[in-house]
């Protein structure tokens, strides 16, 4: 099954090995930000009382003058980031997704997006895999409220290195960016050579019967699902759709035409998320049967990430079942 993996994606060789390395996406953010700051004095970091959780402690130690902690005041953090950006700095403002963008939407809309300020809104601890903290701390609506904002770019990388590259790409892009990742350590499926470009979805696996479009931690689940489907004789394409806005229409359209059925998968509400972005586009340009995997209009709860993914239908098994359903509609 390995050889079906798109060679251009340069994924890790031990993709389905039990010993695949697990790394934090938030560490990818922290490491990238530090590297960026060493090269570019315009990079500044903000957080609202969460430097350790958002992985900017090392930044704080190395660049104390360019690090700002607003205390538990996310709206102020976003406003300050906008002001810094209007003066030519490149601020990254990070908190848990349930605090920012959830509590800061009006500030992101007016101070960041309407000003077209070059500020980066960063959310860690998104999705149910935030885990034991419970539903109050599991952001599962953030993609919906960010992708509807004019001027905003929305990035949801899939693992440590993907997040690192997304952070660097966000710094290089001039304008508002929303960057979303999680708390848990997740399988390191990409390598240094895996391409990452804002606005270009990456085909991780070739396939002709169906396309599994995923973002974030669901990309790995989609790859595992594709391997399962292979056993049933179904050839599944897997797309890492890390840029939810602007959508890579070319790659999506090509996949729709060539495979004729989609499953979308995300650790987010089905309503308004990545799958919605894909289906909005397909409905207008190439309508095909689609099944969506994600949270079905429900909050999460406390538990381990694995337990929560199972209980809320966010595993490779759920993607396989969705694929079987959608293939019948093809």
């Amino acid at each position, binding site marked *: 099954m390995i050889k079906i993996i798109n060679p251009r994606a340069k994924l890790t060789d031990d993709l389905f090995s039990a010993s695949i390395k697990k790394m934090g996406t938030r560490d990818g953010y922290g490491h990238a930000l530090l590297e960026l700051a060493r090269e570019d004095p315009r990079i500044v970091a903000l957080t609202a009382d969460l430097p350790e959780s958002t992985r900017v402690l090392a930044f704080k130690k190395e660049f104390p003058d*360019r690090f700002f902690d*607003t205390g538990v*005041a996310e709206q102020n953090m976003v406003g300050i980031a906008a002001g810094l950006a209007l003066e030519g700095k490149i601020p990254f403002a990070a908190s848990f997704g349930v605090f920012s963008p959830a509590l800061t939407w009006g500030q992101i809309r007016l101070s960041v997006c309407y000003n077209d300020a070059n500020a980066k809104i960063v959310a860690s601890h998104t999705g149910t895999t935030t885990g034991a903290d419970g539903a109050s701390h599991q952001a599962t609506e953030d993609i919906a409220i960010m992708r509807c904002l004019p001027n905003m770019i929305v990035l949801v990388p899939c693992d440590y290195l993907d997040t690192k590259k997304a952070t660097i790409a966000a710094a290089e892009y001039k304008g508002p960016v929303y960057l979303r990742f999680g708390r848990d350590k997740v399988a390191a499926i990409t390598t240094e050579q895996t391409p990452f470009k804002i606005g270009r979805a990456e085909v991780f696996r070739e396939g002709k019967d169906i396309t599994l479009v995923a973002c974030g931690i669901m990309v790995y689940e989609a790859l595992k699902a594709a391997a399962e489907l292979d056993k049933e004789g179904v050839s599944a394409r897997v797309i890492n759709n890390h840029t939810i806005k602007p959508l890579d229409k070319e790659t999506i359209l090509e996949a729709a035409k060539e495979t004729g059925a989609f499953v979308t998968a995300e650790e987010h509400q089905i309503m308004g998320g990545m799958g919605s972005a894909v289906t909005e586009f397909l409905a207008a340009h190439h309508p095909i049967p689609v099944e969506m995997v994600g949270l079905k209009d429900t909050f999460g709860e406390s538990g381990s990430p694995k337990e929560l993914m199972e209980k809320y239908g966010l595993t490779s098994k759920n993607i396989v079942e969705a694929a079987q359903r959608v293939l019948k509609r093809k």
Partner: protein
Amino acid sequence: KNPEWQERDRLVLSNGHICPIWYATLARAGYFPVEELDTLRQINSRLQGHPHNHSLPGLENSSGPLGQGLSIAVGHALAARLDKAKHRVYCVMSDGEHDEGQTWEATMFAANHKLSNITSLIDRNNIQIDSFTEDVMPLEPFKEKLRSFKWHVIEIDGHNIRQVVDACNQAKAIYEKPTAIICHTIPGKGVGFMEFEFDWHGVAPNAEQAEAALKELREEREKISSSDL
């Protein structure tokens, strides 16, 4: 001639709804043709109902929803400090927007970082849309609140431009603290049927009312110029 001049002082307008007076000031200062003022709030105009920074030269920020300006001003002030720049950041605010929690988040932050390059000018006109501020959500003791947040506070007659200029100059001499200038004003000052009437907070006069108001103001100006100046 160059609105983007790097050493300019920054003016962050937090209470965006007063933008007609800002537009008029910019136009008279030569930022855009005075005739364009007539397009205010109309389709395809650069003069949006609430200011949009990319529409007009001279606007530092977009605003409208209250409570966001001081945080933006803090961002400008931090950037100036990082760049070791000497320019100052002025934030024009309303009294009513001190109901917003974010205003106080930024007030705390500015004091914590000793942002002495920020001066806020608060229009203490005692009204907000619904009614008088002290009836809707009392701000008093306002000066004491700001002082307890470790700001330097100056109180002036907001209608007296000499006091405004003096207070801004005084603020430049204050180190280690941001300065708030509470500008006491009378809403509708100089127009008999508007003074102290909060109903005029969000309403524009019709042509007849405007003419009557301007007549009163012109008469007042003549009185002042013959006696005071």
